[in-house]
């Protein structure tokens, strides 16, 4: 029992993730690559009939003007490169953050609110704010001796924003369902049918109905839907532990990626940006690979 308690205390010990400089470089590269992907495309919205966010106060349709949008998108890409190369986030991330928020606010002001990109700009916004906080602290001369470096803090806050999204999602599930989310998840099959049909009628491609078996199977065994979602809820609610230490970050990061992959198989909803950010900010495979190599090298030394 005492061994178990010690192990548990070790697993749950809070350790700030002090990323090595090469990890910061890779982390910035990963986040920048995700933002770069989100910058793809061209918006063609000339109205904002259902204003959301900042569009309630500002007309953002000028962002859809190609003469404005194209250079701004390329400018934002250049800024992302500058950030990866070490230009302070307070300056280099300002354009990508506010351009991204502007473009996607406009997109979400057309009457249909999507949830694929929030995570990208929330992580970027917090990374930018971390850069600004570092700058202010330096200016005021109030940087504690054990403070994280600017790069470490940017990725730390971005990770916290990523985890916060899952915690918020779990709280909303509990609030909106009146606490009956677990019980009601037996009706998941109904929503699966809805998604499959919508996918089919979008393209009239029979391949979209290949997931029908899952809906029928779940209808016959509603308890399995409850088990699947019963496991997902605590994973989301406790996602903040993914910022606690590297082991828990790996556990929650990998767990949430697997959850997204299963949901993708069942519902054809693809949260690719969430998955990419989970891999970059939580799973951090490069560090585990490096650690594995270091262990092997130490083992060989001992044998030698």
């Amino acid at each position, binding site marked *: 029992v005492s061994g178990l308690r010690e192990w548990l205390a070790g697993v749950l010990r809070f350790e700030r993730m002090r990323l090595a400089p090469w990890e910061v470089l890779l982390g910035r590269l990963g986040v920048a690559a995700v933002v770069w992907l989100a910058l793809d495309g061209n918006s063609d919205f000339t109205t904002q009939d259902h204003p959301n*966010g900042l569009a309630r106060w500002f007309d953002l349709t000028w962002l859809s003007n190609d003469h404005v949008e194209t250079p701004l998108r390329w400018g934002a890409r250049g800024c992302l490169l500058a950030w990866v190369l070490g230009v302070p986030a307070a300056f280099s991330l300002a354009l990508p953050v506010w351009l991204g928020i502007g473009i996607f606010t406009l997109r979400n002001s057309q009457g249909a609110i999507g949830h694929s990109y929030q995570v990208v700009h929330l992580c970027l916004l917090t990374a930018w704010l971390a850069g600004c906080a570092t700058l202010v602290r330096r200016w005021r001369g109030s940087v504690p001796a054990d403070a994280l470096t600017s790069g470490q803090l940017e990725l730390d806050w971005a990770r916290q924003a990523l985890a916060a999204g899952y915690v918020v999602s779990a709280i909303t599930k509990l609030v909106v369902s009146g606490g009956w989310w677990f019980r009601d998840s037996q009706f998941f099959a109904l929503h699966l049918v809805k998604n499959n049909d919508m996918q089919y009628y979008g393209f009239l491609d029979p391949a979209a109905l290949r997931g029908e078996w899952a809906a029928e199977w779940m209808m016959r065994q509603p308890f399995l839907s409850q088990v699947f979602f019963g496991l997902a809820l605590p994973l989301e609610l406790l996602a903040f532990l993914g910022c606690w230490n590297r082991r828990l970050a790996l556990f929650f990061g990998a767990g949430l990626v697997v959850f997204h992959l299963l949901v993708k198989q069942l519902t054809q909803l693809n949260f690719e940006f969430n998955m990419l950010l989970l891999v970059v900010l939580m799973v951090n495979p490069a560090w585990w690979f490096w650690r594995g190599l270091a262990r092997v090298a130490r083992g060989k030394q001992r044998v030698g």
Partner: protein
Amino acid sequence: MSARAGVAGAAAVCWRRLRLKPLWLLVIWSAFALPWLQRKQAKPGEFYPFSNFPMYSAFTPRTYYVLVTDLEDEPVPVTLLTGKVLSNVKKVYDSELRKVKQASGGEWRVDAMPLEGRVQAGEKVLRWLMAFAREDQLEKLGGLRLKQVDLTWEEGRVKKTMLEAGEARL
């Protein structure tokens, strides 16, 4: 020391000791503060990039989706025609249904809107959608119809009911 000062002091100590402050600030803001501040809006909790992520927050034994047909009621591959996915078309339809409901002061659920309201909302959606359609294909079709498909859970089976939801001609 007054009780209020005591509570404030304890809160300050808790705040200082709290780990992951940005995370908890975001949680409080997105899950509680924002939905409360926007409680009178159609989509409380949505302020890009902040969201309370309401999708799949409640699995009801009743839901619906929409599909688009030609004027002969044959389904049209709307994503190929307009570039818009049906989940977004449904969200726009939801927003229009809410507007109709607000304007009429009706007390019904938006997904149980009477035919007249559905047609009113559906026509607006189709006009919006047609602006994104490939002109040559749309001309051949002459117009579009929107259908609402109700899905209900009855005795362990899914029952589908198709309802009219408006038409728009060129």
